[in-house]
């Protein structure tokens, strides 16, 4: 038996385990057999072992460069740096499907293992839905995209890894993004199971929220790492270009953001039940839409690495998911009505609702921009391109309004806020925001939107900090030092203050976005060796151009010296433009000198001769903060997810 046949046999075994779990669970519920249900749950656990070993088989094949396997041949070569073996595993369609299947089995395992007893009734449905989802991916692999397919004549060397994927960011960005999209199935399955049992009330919501937060943070970190990768390697000159592949990752994240906010309202006040079901259904269908676009969808993208001819299969699954959601909703809508209604516009729940509205609006604007070219081509026979200007001009103001609600929301109480309380709470943050707005308006010549955006950020950050300070000072009664009461405040209410830390990370990302959109300076020039270009407070000189020839690539490296106005050396930077003949693909790495104030960003866009080249130089203010937002985002999520003392004691 070969590694490839073992890997494929394990896939078939997984397929059978899934089928058994689905059919057995449904029969188990029908005939009220707990034993059968437990057996099905165990079968679901087994898929972790079978798929885990199947993944191990593929990784082993890559490590040993087993070119008898077509997938290994297509995504690795003898000259490939062994460090990229893991990346090569999910570099194409078949391997990434195996990876997704494995992630679903891991997530299902832990979801079932830690399922709280209050959701016991939902467990059989959960097992069958999760197994059904896994069955789809394993079925596609077994029938249409076998990662273990072999050649009859074994080639001596492989094609090599896609050059754009040979980057440190690739160790985490694609796997996190794929994991995030795939594991949206977990909160989705939980909600559907709860709806099926007629118990979608308030019990088990902590578990739903925990799983949703995990999924949401995985997707969020994946998106941020993708931005970092785009900023450093793709030569786009930026972190986000509203590319279709970026958008299909962003849309489910936005809806999940709305969901994790509105589920708080359901937990606290028994409201928004129908809305929460709609949101999670929407997130799930959008995740399937993402899979479709990424794997052979009709929209062209610069980085659709898992593209295949299987687009119609994923389109079919997406339509099936949408119909399934619609039927579940229509059949159960009478069981999921809320206990309470919004009593006042000036309330926390109302702020959450507005926040949800804006998030859904951004999602639909993005979706429209994505599908409009298709609609135009099909119905009007016109080729239309929707680019960044559309997204920026429509989504920009909505995002600003969303940030504004983020600043107002924490000042509102649950149920109803009195005008007096609102005035007291808002006085200082609003005053600080207005003062900053006036200062910026007087001192800078930038568009009014830039000043408005920064003022809104001031409103949000001051709201958070003031509440933090007020809360911790109240806890200092009895001589407790302030810094102890500060941490005590966080520990006493991890959900809330973890959430605030996440809000701070979003503000940092927004700061970078504002910096690059409103304060960027850009120069596009041809430069010769020894020539200097003045930009902002810098002088950039091209020192040399080197050529390196390798078996698989031709590399052109440009070295720049950066000095300040007084000709003092700041740094020596290198950017390169590498061409991979076997892929007919060029990879550009920008030269970046980064600090908290601004990035000096040089793209070596074209090498004209041995001494002359075309470069794009820009000064990108405040981008550094965007990347700092990532670890803070993770920290905030971890604090929110940390179990409460009370639960631990129980």
């Amino acid at each position: 038996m070969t590694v490839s046949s073992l890997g494929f046999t394990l896939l078939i075994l997984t397929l059978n385990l899934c089928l058994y779990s689905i059919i057995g669970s449904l029969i188990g519920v029908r005939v009220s057999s707990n034993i059968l249900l437990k057996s099905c749950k165990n079968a679901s656990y087994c898929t972790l072992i079978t798929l885990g070993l199947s993944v191990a088989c593929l990784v082993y094949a890559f490590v040993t460069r087993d070119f008898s396997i077509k997938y290994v041949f297509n995504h690795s070569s003898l000259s490939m740096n062994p460090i990229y073996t893991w990346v090569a595993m999910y570099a194409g369609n078949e391997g990434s499907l195996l990876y997704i299947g494995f992630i679903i089995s891991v997530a299902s395992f832990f979801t079932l293992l830690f399922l709280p007893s209050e959701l016991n009734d939902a467990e059989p449905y959960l097992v069958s839905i999760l197994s059904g989802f896994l069955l789809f991916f394993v079925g596609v692999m077994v029938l249409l995209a076998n990662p273990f397919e072999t050649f009859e004549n074994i080639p001596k060397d492989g094609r090599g890894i896609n050059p754009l994927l040979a980057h440190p960011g690739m160790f985490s960005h694609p796997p996190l993004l794929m994991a995030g999209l795939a594991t949206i199935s977990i909160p989705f399955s939980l909600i559907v199971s709860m709806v099926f049992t007629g118990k979608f009330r308030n019990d088990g919501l902590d578990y739903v929220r925990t799983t949703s937060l995990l999924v949401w943070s995985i997707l969020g970190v994946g998106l941020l790492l993708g931005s970092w990768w785009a900023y450093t390697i793709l030569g786009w000159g930026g972190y986000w270009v509203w590319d279709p592949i970026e958008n299909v990752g962003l849309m489910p994240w936005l809806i999940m953001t709305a969901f994790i906010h509105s589920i708080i309202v359901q937990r606290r006040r028994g409201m928004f039940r129908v809305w929460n079901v709609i949101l999670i259904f929407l997130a799930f269908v959008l995740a399937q839409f993402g899979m479709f676009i990424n794997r052979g969808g009709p929209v062209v993208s610069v980085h659709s690495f898992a593209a295949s001819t299987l687009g119609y299969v994923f389109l079919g699954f997406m339509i099936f998911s949408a119909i399934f959601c619609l039927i579940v909703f229509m059949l159960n809508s009478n069981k999921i009505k809320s206990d309470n209604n919004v009593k006042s516009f000036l309330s926390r729940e109302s702020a959450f609702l507005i926040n949800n509205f804006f998030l859904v609006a951004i999602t639909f604007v993005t979706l429209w921009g994505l599908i409009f070219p298709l609609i135009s081509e099909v119905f009007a026979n016109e080729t239309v391109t929707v680019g960044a200007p559309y997204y920026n001009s429509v989504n920009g103001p909505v995002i600003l309004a969303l940030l504004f609600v983020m600043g107002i929301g924490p000042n509102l109480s649950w149920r109803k806020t009195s005008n007096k309380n609102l005035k007291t709470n808002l006085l200082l943050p609003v005053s600080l925001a207005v003062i900053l707005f006036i200062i910026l308006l007087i001192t800078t010549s930038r568009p009014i939107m830039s000043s408005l955006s920064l003022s809104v950020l001031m409103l949000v950050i001051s709201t958070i900090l003031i509440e933090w300070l007020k809360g911790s000072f109240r806890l200092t009664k009895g001589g407790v030092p302030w810094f102890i009461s500060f941490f005590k405040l966080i520990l006493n209410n991890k959900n809330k203050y973890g959430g605030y830390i996440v809000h701070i990370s979003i503000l940092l990302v927004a700061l970078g976005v504002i910096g690059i959109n409103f304060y960027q300076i850009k120069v596009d020039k041809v430069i010769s060796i020894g020539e200097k270009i003045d930009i902002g407070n810098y002088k950039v000189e091209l020192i040399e151009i080197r050529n390196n020839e390798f078996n698989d690539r031709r590399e052109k490296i440009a070295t720049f010296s950066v000095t300040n106005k007084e000709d003092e050396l700041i740094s020596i930077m290198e950017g390169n433009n590498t061409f991979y003949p076997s892929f007919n693909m060029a990879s550009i790495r920008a030269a970046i000198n980064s600090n908290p104030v601004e990035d000096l960003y040089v793209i070596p866009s074209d090498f004209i001769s041995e001494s002359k080249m075309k470069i794009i130089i820009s000064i990108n203010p405040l981008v550094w903060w965007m990347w700092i937002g990532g670890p803070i985002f993770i920290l905030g999520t971890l604090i929110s997810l940390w179990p409460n003392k009370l639960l631990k004691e129980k």
Partner: protein
Amino acid sequence: MLYLLLILILIICIFLVIYPFIFQNNLEDPLIRELNLKTRKEKLLLELDNELASGVLDKNLHSQLSSEVNQMINIEFKNLDDISPKIDPIEKLIKSKKNENKK
């Protein structure tokens, strides 16, 4: 070697799948639902207390929201029997026995 590995995995999978049929232990403590509800109630009330302590809520609103939580949990207590279809009839028997003992 690879055959042995495959056989080993098959044995593990078959064992796990048939395990519940051999060792039948499917009793669920019916009181656990009540305990869960109590835990949730305490958690929500604790959050409200923290918000009162940090000044987000005033006393009046705190008492209103606390009574709302109590009311919400009481409804769930009432609904416990109605909305939880029992999978195994043996659970019903155990619960009624326990209730008898309580009386």
